[in-house]
């Protein structure tokens, strides 16, 4: 119903609808769109990096610009592409999976998205305003505190704003999962994707404050003359490294755990088997998250923390391999004895297993401190984290998109294009990154603008660049598929994959209240339980009645826009007094909106029983 209705309305109405929406499904669309946009930007930056490194001593881009590009590639891909795309999938699916009508804080959900978007825009405005940040996505002080121009300021403000959005999103998901599960949906009946959303949100809750503080310190040093990282005044630059990685390592798990969750759901659906060792999978997730907080210093093995600290962090890091291994073997056991359908969603999931296992392998290898003295900050590490983040997160996002596309949009992505895109991307990926393990050990440090002639690095880099082009082609085919599907895509029934979990028990795309009657959950894989017992659909847990829904609001958009303006004020007050105007105006808009939100009661509205009955087909 909704798609037909939106098509009839004018563009302005649709735009206004999306600007003010608090519906988690529409916010998911926004996240996917925003994340997709930044993914393309980050991808272009990646291509420039690979073109620059196609031959020794190349001069495709200048040294300074190259540093800006590599910084923006990392920052964009992590903060503005991978995380929003995952948050988009979580928003689209998690409330459906637990049988909720909406998230706990619809208003904050929308605020979280707009903060992310405006943060990302601030960061990318730097390209037009005198140069992007150039101190690496890690922005180690004092390189970041002494970097000339305003590039790093844009990094600080952009990440601060989008980070606040993510934190809000995390709290929202936590409360949603705890308070809004359907009757009978106990914790140990939640689909793995909902579980990993939960654990990921815990990680967001405890990891992002460290980034917030780190960014504040960096901001105070750069914009207000404090001395946290100014060695001459007694500052210490290691503090930044600690704060960054206290955030940064959990961040890695924030990126990978949701992918683990959705792979679990996909394997189980397409093997037609319940997830093998569900309990072990849940506890492995919790254990990974727990250990994830005490391993940050393995990014700092060469900093000189001393053998005791290095050994402790090495062992803690290796320990994470155990729960991760449990997961891999449980997935294989889920597939074992199943009846496996291979389509594009499943291809991405199947491609993930060998790729991620390689990434995990090298993960244990870099955890071995003395070996890491050689790997650290070389292309070996570049290869390692791309195997994990691309092989895990990006494959996961693509698998999830193929899997849930029919649920989100009522249309199925073209299978043939999907498979072609997978094979090209998969080949390109391994071509690009496998060789980089060896480049690193052969003496090529990461973040190198050029590599010199006669150092035996030419062939490897050439192969890597060729692979990168294949990856780009794969991505283009995927985006073509998206457009093709939107125009000509085949409409599908509500449950095209013979699904097992609650999201497949409602219409595709779901009505804005998700479930007309909240379903009663009678076991793990609730829909499957009903299917095997011959009913094929959920039993309602309540009689048909009025549904309470939240009102839409433009305030989140305006608040984020206020911060966006204030961001420029903060950056330029160093040079110009007039910059205090946008600073105060922006903060005024923010606080004013908060005040309005606080003073104006918002009771939401009700969809009456009669309306619901009329909508029934």
């Amino acid at each position: 119903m909704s798609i037909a209705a939106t098509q009839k309305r004018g563009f302005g109405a649709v735009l206004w609808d999306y600007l003010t929406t608090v519906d988690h499904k529409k916010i998911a669309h926004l996240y996917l769109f925003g994340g997709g946009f930044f993914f393309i930007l980050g991808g272009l930056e990646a291509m420039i990096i690979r073109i620059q490194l196609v031959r020794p001593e190349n001069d495709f881009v200048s040294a300074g610009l190259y540093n800006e590009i590599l910084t923006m590639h990392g920052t964009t891909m992590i903060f503005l592409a991978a995380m929003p795309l995952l948050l988009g999938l979580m928003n689209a699916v998690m409330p459906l999976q637990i049988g909720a009508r909406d998230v706990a804080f619809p208003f904050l959900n929308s605020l979280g998205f707009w903060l992310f978007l405006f943060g990302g825009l601030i960061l990318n405005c730097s390209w037009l305003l005198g140069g992007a940040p150039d101190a690496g996505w890690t922005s180690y002080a004092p390189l970041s505190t002494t970097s000339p121009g305003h590039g790093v300021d844009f990094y600080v403000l952009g990440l601060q704003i989008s980070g606040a959005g993510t934190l809000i999103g995390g709290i929202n998901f936590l409360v949603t999962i705890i308070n809004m599960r359907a009757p009978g949906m106990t914790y140990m009946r939640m689909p793995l994707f909902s579980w990993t959303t939960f654990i990921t949100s815990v990680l967001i809750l405890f990891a992002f404050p460290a980034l917030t503080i780190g960014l504040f310190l960096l901001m105070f040093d750069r914009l207000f003359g404090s001395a946290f990282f100014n060695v001459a005044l007694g500052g210490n630059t290691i503090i930044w490294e600690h704060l960054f990685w206290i955030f940064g390592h959990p961040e890695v798990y924030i990126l990978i755990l949701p992918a683990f969750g959705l792979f679990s759901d996909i394997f189980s659906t397409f093997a037609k088997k319940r997830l093998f060792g569900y309990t072990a999978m849940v506890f492995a997730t919790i254990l990974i998250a727990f250990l994830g907080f005490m391993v940050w210093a393995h990014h700092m093995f060469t900093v000189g923390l001393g053998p005791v600290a290095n050994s402790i962090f090495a062992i803690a890091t290796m320990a994470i391999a155990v729960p991760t291994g449990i997961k891999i073997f449980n997935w294989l056991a889920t597939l074992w004895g199943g009846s496996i359908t291979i389509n594009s969603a499943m291809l991405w999931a199947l491609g993930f297993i060998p790729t991620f296992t390689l990434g995990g392998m090298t993960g244990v290898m870099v955890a071995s401190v003395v070996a890491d003295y050689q790997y650290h900050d070389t292309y070996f590490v570049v290869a390692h984290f791309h195997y994990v983040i691309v092989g895990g997160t990006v494959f996961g996002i693509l698998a999830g998109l193929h899997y849930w596309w029919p649920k989100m949009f009522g249309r199925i992505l073209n299978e043939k294009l999907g498979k072609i895109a997978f094979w090209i991307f998969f080949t390109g990926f391994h071509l690009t990154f496998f060789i980089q393990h060896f480049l690193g050990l052969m003496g090529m440090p990461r973040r190198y603008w050029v590599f010199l002639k006669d150092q035996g690095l030419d062939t490897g880099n050439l192969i890597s660049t060729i692979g990168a082009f294949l990856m780009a082609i794969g991505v283009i085919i995927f985006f073509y598929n998206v457009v093709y599907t939107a125009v000509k895509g085949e409409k599908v029934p509500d449950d095209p994959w013979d699904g097992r979990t609650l999201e497949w028990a409602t219409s595709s795309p779901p009505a804005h209240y998700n479930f007309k009657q909240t379903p009663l959950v009678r076991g793990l894989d609730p829909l499957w339980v009903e299917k095997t017992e011959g009913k094929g659909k959920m039993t309602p847990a309540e009689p048909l009645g009025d549904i309470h829904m939240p009102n839409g609001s433009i305030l989140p958009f305006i608040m984020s826009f206020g911060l966006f303006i204030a961001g420029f004020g903060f950056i330029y007050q160093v040079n110009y007094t007039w910059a205090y105007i946008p600073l105060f105006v922006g903060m005024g808009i923010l606080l004013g909106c908060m005040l309005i939100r606080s003073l104006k009661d918002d009771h939401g509205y009700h969809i009456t029983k009669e309306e619901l009955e009329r909508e029934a087909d």
Partner: protein
Amino acid sequence: MSHDHSLNPETMPHEPEKATLEGKNKFLGFWFFLGGETVLFACLFGTYLALRNSTAGGPTTNDLFGLELVFIMTILLLTSSLTSVYAMYHMKNNNFKKMQLWLGVTAVLGFAFLGCELYEFNHYIHEYEFTFRSSAFGSAFYTLVGFHGGHVTFGLLWLLALMIRNAKRGLNLYNAPKFYVFSLYWHFIDVVWVFIFTVVYLMGKVG
């Protein structure tokens, strides 16, 4: 309207802050936010502890801190914590007027605390020329204590907004969670202060 009735029941439930789903969500969400704030302040404390001896030739903790003012500030904030407990006590007894009164006392104590803090900062800046920029220790000190002060300021603005907005209409199930969540925030500010006076001032005096 139907919710006016449901938000103003005949008999107030025992825990008005958790009587509605929105209230429950707010309650839980805010606790989690405080969990995140714990980490946030831990980072500030960690930074401060790492930099507290980096005075770059400027005044040290022992030179700067006087215990009298800090003691007064501590008592002010601790007492304001108790007064907000009283306010919640009256909320549970559904006595709106007394709740407002105790919240008012809380606000007064909060402003008094803030005034002391401003006086203290002013004193350091003018008597000792000890500023945010003078050393890494200075930066860390003002950032940690200032973040706490910022939290107090925000809390006071929030409290005033709540009190003024609801002055005329009394307590109901829509605003009870808001008052309750504010009291949680206020207690948390006090928790942070307990560590600030211990770690920054008292330990700074010990050396």
